[in-house]
Every structure is written in structure tokens, then in C-alpha cells.
């Protein structure tokens, strides 16, 4: 079976990069007071981490064009779904009524 094989060093480097990115994400989320942007930054870091996992641990670097295309289409569909849903909910002039708690739910503040 002719496969290009990843080296031991590349696996270890990928692992260290993942640990580093996780550490940076924790610092951003907990120590940097940037409430409007921290989710965006952390999602960007999560995407970078996912990229490392895909490229090195899931061997996308060795994968065929068809596999990369299939994955690309799936991720594009996922992003489209997320963007359209968030855009819909966020831009309605009148928010839909939030689902009401059942009877006897005096527990909730609102």
C-alpha cells in the first residue's frame, strides 16, 4: 500500500501546537476582558485546533482530492446553515415568543 507516512516529530509538534492553542484560548476567555469578541476569538482558535487535528491526526495531508472536496462541501453546508439561522434569529424585527415554562414554574425570573 503506497501511502506517504507522517513522521513522529510531526505528530508531537501537532500535539504541542494543540496544547498551546488551548492555553491561549483559556487565557483569552478568562483573563482578557473583551466580552464582545471573546467568543469569536475562541471559535477562531477552535477552528485552528480542528484544522491541526484534521491535517495531522486525521491525515488530511495524505488524503485524496475527493476526500478533501467532500469535507469542504460538508463544512460549507454547516457554515451556511449556522449563518442563515443566526442571521434569521438576530434580524427579526420582532423576536418570536420564547417558549413558555410550564404551569407552576414560578421558579424562573423571566
Amino acid at each position, binding site marked *: 500500500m503506497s501511502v506517504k507516512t507522517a513522521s513522529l516529530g510531526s505528530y*508531537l509538534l501537532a500535539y504541542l501546537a494543540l496544547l498551546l492553542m488551548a492555553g491561549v484560548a483559556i487565557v483569552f*476567555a478568562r483573563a482578557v476582558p473583551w466580552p464582545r469578541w471573546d467568543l469569536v476569538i475562541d471559535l477562531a482558535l*477552535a477552528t485552528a485546533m480542528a484544522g491541526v*487535528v484534521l491535517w495531522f491526526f486525521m*491525515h488530511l495531508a495524505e488524503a485524496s482530492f475527493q476526500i478533501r472536496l467532500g469535507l469542504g462541501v460538508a463544512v460549507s453546508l454547516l457554515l451556511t446553515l449556522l449563518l442563515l439561522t443566526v442571521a434569521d434569529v438576530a434580524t427579526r424585527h420582532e423576536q418570536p415568543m420564547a417558549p413558555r415554562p410550564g404551569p407552576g414554574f414560578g421558579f*424562573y425570573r423571566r
Partner: protein
Amino acid sequence: MSEPALGEQFHDLERQAATLRFGMWIFLVSEILLFAALFTLYAAYRTMFSEDFREGVLHNTFAYGTANLFILLTSSLTASLALYGARRDRRRWTGLMLVATAALGLAFIAVKLTEYGKHVEEGSTPGPWYHYAELPTFGGNRFFTMYWGMTGFHVLHLAAGVLVVSWMAVRAFKGHYTARYHVKLEMGTLYWSLVDLMWIFLWTILYLS
């Protein structure tokens, strides 16, 4: 060491491996789209109850979630090292790395169950059972309902992964994975890394911000 079986529809092992690999990726892509439904529901609720979701994240069990992140990242490394061993005909190394991967998976499940116990104790339980006094809002209820749904779905995938990896470890020790043919091991490690990848995003949106 057993000879790999060649399906009658294939001319050679290389073509068989390429087909199996492509089929596995189709399965993984369908798994991604399955999780997409949950992520979309989360995004919609987060847009509707943004303050409550932010509070929910701050009240969540960050230490448990982060411990599990490091456990899964390490398990992805050991799974890849198992494949590294198989590609070099190191049977014992491959088996040991798979055992380490399964053990890390069990550690993840143990941490998760401890965490669930804590949530039950404090009342941050899903849907109609929610009575968490520190966040008595309907948005808080939605956050923890999504938390239970998403992490529960994920841990079921992980439990299936532990079974698969354990089975692969037995086969590795028996010498089923060789440098010449190890595509089934490759498929198993792909699945394992996808479960890890999903946790990276779950950790970000449920524990981090």
C-alpha cells in the same frame, strides 16, 4: 499474522483500501452534519438568550471540561501513534498505543459522569427537571438542556469509540495490522479523532465563552 482479505470486487488491496477510506470519510461527513443540527439549535438559542448563555458558560464546570479536552487531545496523539506503529510493522507498539487510547477514553467518560453527578446535585439538569438556583432563568434552562443534549450525544459516540479501539487493540496484538495493509485501523483512528474534534468545539461553546 493473517493475510488481508481481498473483496471479489477489487483488483488489489490498494484499491480496496482507497474505497474503504473514502467510505469512512463519507460516514464522518454525515456525522459532522448530524452534529450540525445540534450546533445550529445552540446558535439559535444563544442568539435569543445571549446573556443567559454567557452566564451559563460562567456557571459551568470549566475544570472538568478542560481536563477532558486535554484527555482527548492526548488520546488523538496515541491513536495516531498506533497508526505510526502499524505502518512500521511494530505490532506491540500499535497494540499498546490503542490500549492507551481506550484508557484515555474511559478516563474521559469517568470525568464526564462525575461532572453529570455534580450537575444533578446542583439542579442544572435538562428541561423540566431544571432547578439551578444560581441561574433561575428560562435561558439558563435552555443552556443546560443544550449542554446535556450535546455532551450526552458526544459521550455516546465516545463510548462507541472505546469499544472500537479496544477491539482494534486485540486485533493489533494478534498482528492483523501490517505495514502492507492497515486501512481498518486507519478508519478507527479517523473516527476517534473526529470525536476529539467535536469536543474542541463543544468545549469552546459550553465551557469557555
